[in-house]
């Protein structure tokens, strides 16, 4: 075997899986060279999740990015001549109206995002997939672009690596695990392996199930988690003998039973002459921390293929036998069946992009086969151009606040995500039950007393309405409709509409503690923010102003929206909870790259924010401040920021937290008061 080079431009950790191999391909395509790919085991992988993946692709997600990456990947596999576009069905059983509704919703998403899905009748389903009991089905969806990567995605990985090697741009090293990362002054310098060190300008972690272990070498964690996915095999199935096909029938998903099935074609093909039936645990998913993964020598099949006890899947398997009796007719191949590990994530998206702690260290972890080439393209474009042609907010590793990479948090959220891989349908407003109560505003206890209905955003518990205001429902009965449809009404409190009307008519106070707040200080703070923001923030006339503005990317596209408050010695940056950490990381990187002398500090938990809104907001505020005159029209017009004091209010629930505010306030006409929480 060739000597490991002493240095390279880029090192890919985990070259042998679909992500590493696709990243290598796209790096070469975008003109990168001097790339070294290493893998803990074989290339292509014999131990990663790619080695046992079911390899099928459906473009039926509810989000634009997933549909884009899946469609890109399907085209990619097809151009290589390694895709069997057999189409795929998703069905709803008779009696499962919720699933039928979800299928209709998926068709609408498909129309929005440009996939080819459409509704099909039970008769059409039977025609396309004769193994099904037509009487048990009420309807379904057909994805004409669904299909299978053939003969295996593992084979495709081998080809991608081989071609990249032939180009002279990539050197591949199997059996070369990363045992450490070499980091100096917050920048990646190289990778340690048992075969020596490789110095590198960039390191890309494509280590899949082992991704968190590698991230740990940089002192951070990725909010992803391996989970058992039972794959079972039935055979022999001779239907496609002599056809040479890798798959004969379309793919079938029965998500109401959290299951899918597919045939494996001609018995003479790679996996041939069987039917594969797969399942996702809905009630007790078995998660496995990456540090507990076995080594190759310790596992019966492989580290990512754990033993499956048939009892684990008996009930859903029996339901599958009702729908597709062929499964009962064929023999269950116990030896071949296993629990394949795949990864779920805390918010449904992968961990992609540059590390938050180490410049030049990039992640591409927790990615399905169907998204592998598409996400690899986005990652490489991102590294090459600093941007991607579609918005990457949903995959950016910088989106995670520190608390979101806490081990217990990851476990709690990933457990819930694992329970909903196929079923039930996830509501757009669906809250998590685990990982809650991380951040509470100073008003939390009071809000609880008022009967707050809490949801979470960026870790903050936010009341979406208060039981104490439900008397308003009478006042506004004719303007606040009852939402008869359960889905429309789910995770919604009718009182919030009444509160909205009351605020428009009188005054209302809204807890906005979830805003992310960062202070930009230092000699260059004005110059720096002037270069980042579209609006003019520099100049003495801006001091004391609140300015709503944006970051653009190099192409002039909208990257962030926020409000900055110019203070005498700093710029206070107030951002939405969803985007806060990402924008914080961006500002820190820009300050470093452009060499501005600034300090950027997260002060989100030092201050809180209240919106006081409505026609009577000013007069209401004037009643409780020390100097009401100071908040008159002349002194306090729109878009101004003013410090003001409030006397403590004995007898109220939180007198001690109120104190004079030597900082600006002002959110439109309303006041953003800040008070210490600790």
């Amino acid at each position: 075997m060739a000597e490991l080079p002493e240095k390279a431009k880029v090192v890919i950790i985990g070259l042998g899986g679909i992500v590493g191999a696709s990243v290598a391909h796209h790096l070469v395509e975008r003109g990168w060279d001097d790339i070294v790919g290493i893998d803990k085991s074989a290339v292509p992988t014999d131990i990663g999740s790619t080695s046992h993946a079911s390899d099928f692709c459906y473009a039926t997600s509810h989000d634009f990015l997933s549909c884009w990456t899946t469609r890109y990947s399907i085209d990619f596999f097809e151009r290589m001549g390694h895709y069997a576009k057999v189409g795929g069905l998703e069905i709803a059983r008779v009696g499962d109206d919720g699933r039928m509704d979800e299928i209709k919703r998926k068709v609408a998403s498909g129309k929005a995002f440009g996939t080819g899905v459409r509704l099909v009748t039970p008769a059409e389903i039977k025609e396309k997939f004769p193994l099904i009991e037509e009487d048990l089905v009420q309807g379904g969806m057909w994805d004409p672009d669904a299909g299978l990567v053939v003969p295996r995605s593992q084979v495709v990985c081998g080809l991608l690596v081989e071609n990249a090697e032939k180009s002279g741009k990539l050197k591949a090293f199997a059996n070369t695990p990363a045992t450490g990362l070499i980091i100096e002054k917050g920048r990646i310098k190289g990778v340690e392996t048992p075969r020596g060190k490789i110095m590198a300008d960039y390191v890309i972690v494509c280590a899949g199930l082992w991704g968190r272990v590698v991230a740990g070498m940089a002192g951070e964690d990725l909010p992803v988690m391996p989970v058992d996915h039972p794959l079972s095999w039935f055979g022999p199935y001779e239907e496609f003998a002599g056809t040479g096909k890798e798959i004969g029938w379309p793919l079938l998903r029965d998500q109401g039973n959290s299951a899918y099935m597919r045939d494996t074609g001609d018995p003479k093909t790679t996996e041939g002459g069987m039917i594969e039936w797969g399942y996702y645990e809905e009630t007790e998913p078995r998660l496995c921390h990456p540090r507990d993964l076995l080594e190759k020598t310790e596992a019966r099949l492989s580290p990512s293929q754990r033993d499956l006890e048939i009892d684990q899947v008996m009930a859903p398997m029996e339901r599958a036998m009702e729908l597709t009796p062929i499964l009962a007719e064929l023999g269950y191949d116990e030896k071949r069946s296993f629990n394949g590990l795949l990864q779920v994530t805390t918010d449904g998206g992968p961990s992609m992009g540059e590390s938050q702690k180490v410049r030049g260290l990039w992640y591409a972890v927790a990615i399905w086969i169907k998204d592998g080439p598409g996400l690899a393209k986005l990652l490489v474009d991102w590294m090459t151009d600093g941007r991607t042609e579609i918005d990457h907010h949903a995959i950016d590793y910088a989106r995670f606040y520190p608390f979101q990479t806490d081990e217990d948090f990851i476990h709690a959220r990933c457990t819930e995500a694992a329970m909903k891989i196929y079923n039930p349908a996830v509501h757009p407003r669906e809250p998590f039950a685990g990982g809650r109560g991380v951040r509470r505003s100073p008003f939390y206890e009071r809000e609880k007393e008022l009967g707050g209905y809490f949801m979470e955003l960026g870790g903050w518990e936010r009341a979406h309405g208060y039981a104490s205001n439900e008397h308003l429902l009478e006042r506004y009965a004719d303007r606040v409709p009852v939402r008869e449809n359960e889905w429309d009404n789910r995770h919604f409190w009718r009182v919030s509409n009444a509160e909205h009307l009351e605020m428009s008519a009188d005054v209302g106070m809204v807890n906005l503690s979830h805003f992310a707040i960062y202070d930009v200080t230092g000699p260059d703070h004005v110059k720096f923010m002037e270069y980042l923001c579209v609006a003019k923030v520099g100049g003495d006339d801006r001091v004391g102003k609140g300015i709503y503005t944006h970051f653009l990317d190099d192409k002039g596209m909208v990257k962030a929206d926020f409000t900055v408050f110019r203070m005498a010695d700093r710029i206070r940056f107030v951002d939405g909870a969803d985007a806060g950490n990402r924008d914080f990381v961006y500002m820190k990187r820009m300050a470093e790259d452009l060499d501005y002398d600034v300090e950027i500090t997260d002060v989100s938990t030092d201050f809180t924010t209240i919106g006081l809104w409505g026609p009577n907001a000013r007069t209401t505020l004037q009643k409780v401040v020390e100097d009401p005159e100071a908040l008159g029209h002349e002194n306090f017009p729109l878009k101004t920021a003013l410090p003001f004091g409030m006397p403590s209010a004995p007898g109220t629930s939180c007198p001690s937290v109120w104190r004079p505010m030597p900082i600006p306030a002002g959110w439109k006409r309303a006041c953003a008061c800040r008070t210490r929480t600790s």
Partner: protein
Amino acid sequence: MRLQNADLLTEYNLLEADLARPKVKDADFIGKAAYLEHRARDHQPAMLCTLVITDDRDSKGVARYPVGVLPIMDPETGETLADSEGRRSFTTSIAYGPTIGKNIALGYLPHEHAVKGKRFQVEYFGDTYPVEVAGVGYEPLYDPENLKPRT
């Protein structure tokens, strides 16, 4: 109000979101050259528009309050609108507005369709609903002149 990661995306420019400033500051800033080019155009390929659902009853006659992403389609062809850059039209936000008593949505519409009063349809759980363009760019339906905060 427009929200980053929903209505504001790196797929659209600041003029399409109708959040450009009246003037461009003298100082240089990231994206300025592209921003000036966008400003020099006769029009943008798409505009973020406000739409209202004009009939919210589903096929069973139940009034609906949609959540999530709905395709915005040509009622004649049933095809989802797409602009000259190939970007498709769908709702980026949707909510019931009790002050105006209607479901209100935001979505980017191709230039030729971004016309106040134009009618399209959205799809939700297999049913279609008529929508009307109530505002092109930043045109709030409640207090459109932004007079209330000035009092």
